[in-house]
Structure formats: C-alpha cells, structure tokens
C-alpha cells in the first residue's frame, strides 16, 4: 500500500510538471463540447433552389413565393434554360430545381400540368427529405388554387403521431451523448497509451523493473492520476450538457456515474494495452488516434447500429463507446429504470476485466 501511494505520487508529479499537456487535457473537452453540442445535426435546412419558369403565370409565381417564404428553402437563382440548371448542379450551387412547363396555370386546372422537381441525389437522406417537403408544399399550393373540387364521403384512418422523449425533435438529444462518449474515449486512450511506453523510451523502465514493485501495482499507479483527470472531464462535460446545452437529465444520476466510471476505466485500459504492446511513443499515439475510426463509425453516435449488416454489428458490440452512449441516451433522456442498463454495465465490466488481464499478461518484466 505504501509502495502504491508513493508510486502514485511519482506519477502525479510527472503530470503536474507538464502543465501545458495537463492544460490541453482539461480544455480540449470543453472546446469540443461547445463546438459540437450545436453543430452536429442532420436537420434539413437551407435548400438552395433554382427556378426555371417557362410559364410565369399567377400560379407559378405563387408557388415560387411559397418556396421563398418557407424556412427550408432559399431561392438562389432564376434560370431560363435546362443547360443552366445542369451547370449549377455540377458546380454545386443548388440542391434542387423547380421547372414549370409553359401554360402551367391553365393546365393545372384541367389536369396535366407539368412541373418537374429535380434534386441533387448526392446525399440520399437529405435528398429524400427535401423532395418530401417540396412535394407537400407544391401540392398544398395547387390544391388551394383548385379548391373547388368536390370530395365525397371517404373512409379515413387518422394517424396521430407522438414523438416520445424528444417532442421538439432537437438533434442535440441524439448527438450530445455520442459526442460525450467520443471525447472521453479518445482522450483517455491518448493519455494512458504513453504511460508505459514513455518509460521504455526514456530508459527509466530499467529502474522500475529492477525495483520490487509488482506489475499490477505499477499499472494501477499509472492509471490513478489519469482516472482523476478523466473523471473531472466527464463531470465538466455533464455540466456543460446540462447548463449550456440545456439537455435534461431525467434518469438516475448515480447509476449513470457508475457506468461512466466503468467506461473511463475501459478506455484507460485500452490505452494501457496499446502501451504494453508497442515499443515507441509514436506508434502508441498513432494507434490510439486510429481509435477515432471505430469510435466514430461503430458506436451508434451517427449511424444507428441496427441498420448495420450483421458482421458490422458484431464489431459494434465490442466498441465500449457504443454501450456508454446507449446507456447515456437511456438514462439522461429517456429516464428508464436501472434494469434496462444492466446489459451495458455487464459488457463494460467484462471488457475491463479482459483488457486488464491481457495487459498484465503482456507486461514484460524483462528488458528485451
């Protein structure tokens, strides 16, 4: 115990001596949280529209006005030929084009009015949402014009749509837990992955190995100060999401904290494992940076896990951030009972045990 204490003190000195790095460690999460709390969203807004109006009558003018007044659309240009539209699409100046044929108004009443909606399909989701909005707007305007139509008694099934947990459909509710998981995961790995390899590179490993310290004590002592920093980061992030981004916290805070601690430990042990495997700091940094890739794509932060093909879902299962993000969404926003996060806790615990066991096993007590 005394050994452990003094070793922890040594590690704390190491970290406190490098004030610049410590500063970065504490400030980076704040910057990222502020930036991404609002910036990451998939809402559709600001669709740039070009109009090709060969008719120029009252109806088309009204439709164009409607589009201009709608918050989803911005009219960028009026063109007179199809060639201009093609060019604007290719230069990425517009996202959508409305083309009215000649004599649109008179044909609209008699049936057979021609309006063509052209959309840039480059981003599929945005394209289909945009086309949905535009079609609705067009139909509504034309319907008003031809409102004298008779409808007889029809059977109607009325769907009442209710949005649970997030009635205003704010995208922060979805993305903030993801950003939290990503920041903590990557910072933890970047921190702890230098822990052992630095001693190797600097040459102080020899001294440590010659001492009677057992590897487990050494590993624990290395992790303690980083754990404290990560915990501070986690709490800062939570405070920012609550007070700055205005996210609710409806679930059980203590259970969430417990899972957060577990998640930090898993992330730190991944760094530790990297540190025991490689022989240079460069390789350690590179590997922990490449953790961006699985964390970004497989964690369910942006792309939902259920939509992935089965082998990819398998990969997602071992990504710790996935379980943390899922638990955060459930506890913070849905406010579910603790039973529903038992699985998350279990997976994280198993990962922690396995990672620590492998690190300990790979920890060489001899210099090669």
């Amino acid at each position, binding site marked *: 115990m005394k050994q452990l204490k003094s070793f922890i003190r040594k590690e704390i000195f190491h970290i406190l001596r490098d004030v610049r790095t410590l500063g*970065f460690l504490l400030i980076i999460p704040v910057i990222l949280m502020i930036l991404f709390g609002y*910036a990451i969203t998939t809402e559709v807004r600001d669709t740039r529209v070009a109009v090709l109006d060969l008719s120029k009558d009252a109806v088309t003018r009204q439709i164009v006005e409607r589009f201009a007044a709608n918050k989803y659309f911005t009219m960028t240009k009026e063109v007179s030929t199809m060639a201009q539209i093609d060019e604007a699409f290719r230069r990425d100046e517009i996202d959508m084009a409305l083309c009215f044929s000649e004599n649109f108004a008179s044909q609209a009443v008699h049936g057979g009015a*021609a309006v063509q909606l052209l959309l840039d399909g480059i981003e599929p989701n945005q*394209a289909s949402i945009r086309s949905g909005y535009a079609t609705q707007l067009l139909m509504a305007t034309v319907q008003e014009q*031809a409102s004298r139509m008779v409808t007889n008694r029809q059977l109607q099934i*009325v769907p009442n749509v209710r*949005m649970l947990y997030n009635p205003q*459909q704010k995208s922060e509710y979805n993305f903030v837990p993801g950003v939290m998981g990503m920041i903590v995961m990557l910072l933890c790995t970047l921190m702890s992955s230098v822990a052992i390899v630095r001693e190797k590179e600097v040459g102080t490993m020899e001294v440590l190995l010659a001492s009677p310290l057992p590897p487990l004590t050494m590993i624990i002592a290395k992790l303690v100060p980083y754990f404290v920093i990560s915990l501070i980061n986690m709490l800062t992030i939570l405070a920012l999401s609550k007070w700055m981004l205005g996210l609710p916290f409806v679930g059980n805070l203590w259970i969430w904290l417990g899972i957060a601690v577990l998640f930090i430990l898993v992330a730190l042990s991944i760094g530790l494992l990297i540190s025991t495997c490689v022989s240079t700091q460069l390789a350690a940094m590179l590997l922990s940076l490449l953790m961006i890739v699985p964390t970004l794509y497989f964690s369910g932060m942006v792309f939902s896990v259920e939509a*992935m093909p089965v082998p990819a879902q398998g990969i997602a299962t071992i990504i710790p951030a996935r379980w943390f993000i899922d638990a955060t969404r459930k506890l913070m926003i849905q406010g*579910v009972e603790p039973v529903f996060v038992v699985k998350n806790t279990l997976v994280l615990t198993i990962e922690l045990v396995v990672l620590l066991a492998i690190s300990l096993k790979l920890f060489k007590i001899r210099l090669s």
Partner: protein
Amino acid sequence: MTLLFLLEKEFKQMFRLIILPIIFVLLPVFMLNMIPRIATQEVKNVNFVVVDNDHSSLSRRLIEKLSASAYFHLLDVSPTYQAAEYYIKSGDADIIVEISPDFEKNLYREGRADVQVSANAINGSKSGLGSAYITQIITAYANELNEENGTAAANSKLSTLNSQLSPRFLYNLNLDYKVYMIPAVIAMILTLLMGFLPALNIVLEKERGTIEQINVTPIGRLEFILAKLIPYWVVGIAVLLFSILCGGMFHGVWPVGSVWSILTITTVFLFVASSMGLIVSNFSDTIQQAALVMFCFLIIFILLSGLLTPVSSMPTWARAITEFNPMRFFIEPMRIIYIKGATLRDLAPYFLRLSIMAVVLGTLAIWSYKKNS
C-alpha cells in the same frame, strides 16, 4: 542536392517503423471495406411493436400491411401500451403503433378511425422518417379500403398532378449512400495519416535530441521543411491511388470524373494537411502534446467537414468555422468529382481556396521552425 540526402533519411526513417507501412495498407482496406456498408442514414429495418386493441379483420390487415414494408420489422404484438413501452425502453423497438378499440366499427360507422403512432424521437431522422413512412402506409391502406367500398375520391385532377410529381434525383439515381461515403472516406484516410504523422515528426526529433544535430548543419529552413513534407506527399498520393482501387474493387464505385482532377486537388490538400501537422509539431514540446493538439484539430476537421452530417444543417456560426476547414474543401470537391464528374474548371473556387491555405500554412510551417531554441 542536400534535399535529396534529407529525403533519403526521411524515407528510411518512415519505413523503418514497421507499423507505418502496415497502417498505410490496412487502414484503406479496412475503412473502405467496412465503412461504406455501415455509414448510412437510410431508415430501414426499424423495429416496431403493435398494440391491437380491436382484434378485427381490418386491424389485422393493417398490421400485415405494416410488417410487409421493407422499412419495418414487426417485433411483437403486445396486449397493452405499457407492455409495448418495455421494448422502447430496452431499445429493441423504436415505434409503437396502437390501434384504437372499435377501430373497425368507427371506420364503418363514422368513416373515421384513429391509430396512435408513438416514436422514440431521440434519433430525429429515424423517428421522423419512420413515422412518415407509417403514415404513408396507413393512408395507402385507407385508399385501398375506399376502392373496395366504392368510396374512392371522385376523379381529382390533383391526383394526376400527384402522379406526375415524381421527383427526379440526379447523379445518385438510386440514392445509394455508398457512392456518397466512399470519396469522403478516402479524404478522411488521407487527413488522418497525412495530418497526424507530420505532427509527430519534428517533435520526435526534439524528444530524441536529433534535432540539435540538424540545427548545427548548414541545412536551410526551407530545405528542412520540404524534406519533411515531400515524403508525406509521395506516400499520400500512393495511399490515394490504392484507396481509389479499394473503393472500386470492394463496392464497384469508381470516380466519374477524371483521376487527374482528383490527383491535382489531392496534391494541394496534402500540402495543407502536412504543413498543418508540421506547425503543430514545431510548437509542441512532447509527442503527447502534439498528439493531443492534433487530435483536437482532427476531430474538429472531421465533424465540421460535412463528412458525417451535412454542412448545410449546421447553425450559421458553425458554418462560418467550416469556411476555414481544409478538409471541407477537400471532401466537397472529392464528392463532386466522384459523383458528378466535375472538371477542374468547375472546381476552381475550391482549388483557389485550398491553394491559399497551402501557401499560408506552408509559410507558417517554415517560419515556425527555428534553428535556435
């Protein structure tokens, strides 16, 4: 001439670290194979639960209609709303469709019946599109019932317009997400490697002490920085070509535009990314510092580039930041060349912007390297 020797040194150092060549090959293979398969915002296979309070033939037919759709997967038919809510809480289902009691009776007597659709709205695009699809299916079902009962709407001219109004999607005809992601994933691979490696390079020489040996030689600042930049540029181009090959072989997605335009824009971008890395490296004392700062920049670049979420969705101030994000001005032209086949002339604005960034950051990289500490 000295430059050649320096280049030889840099290349030898790069390939002596065995992990680097492995990453140069494995990273594109892994990322281009897996990510286009999973990186999709398409809404499909959404699990839903039905609460059927009516148990009539009409309600059963509605359930069949819903589960026949490719977008949805019927997980369970629950007896009560509370039982269905369990699936939402556990995360197994995202939508509850509750059919009101007397659904059939109300429909025939009053011509109107209610269906309650409750969606887990944490993921806005999933709940939004999901409930919209359900609404469409329900409306189609109502139309079908109307036709069977002869209560279909009298010929509405509107419906002719409606049938004509099939929007046409340009370039990405089948709305395939893969086509959209592959050029961006290539851009991400290049940014990750060619931004991060230079960031560790000079600071590594500092930590090892070899920088002093360079400082006492008559090698100029320009030569030194060029010797650091050129290897990344060469490797970057090789990784680019390999990545294009991977994208084509794994998914059959080849650039529509010319490879030359891709090469030109990549050349400029690689100089921007590596210069940026070298600047960070010059200002850092330890490898860990450089890595942390570069990580911060990379995450900002990636998330504010339109790679994962569209730039047009961002709030105005965030869009202002993206104006300075070199990765955005690389991903956008990459996508446009890949999908729309734009030529370099179409891309002149992007090209100009990247060139300005390259000049500014390149100068900064040379300026920030000081031979005396």
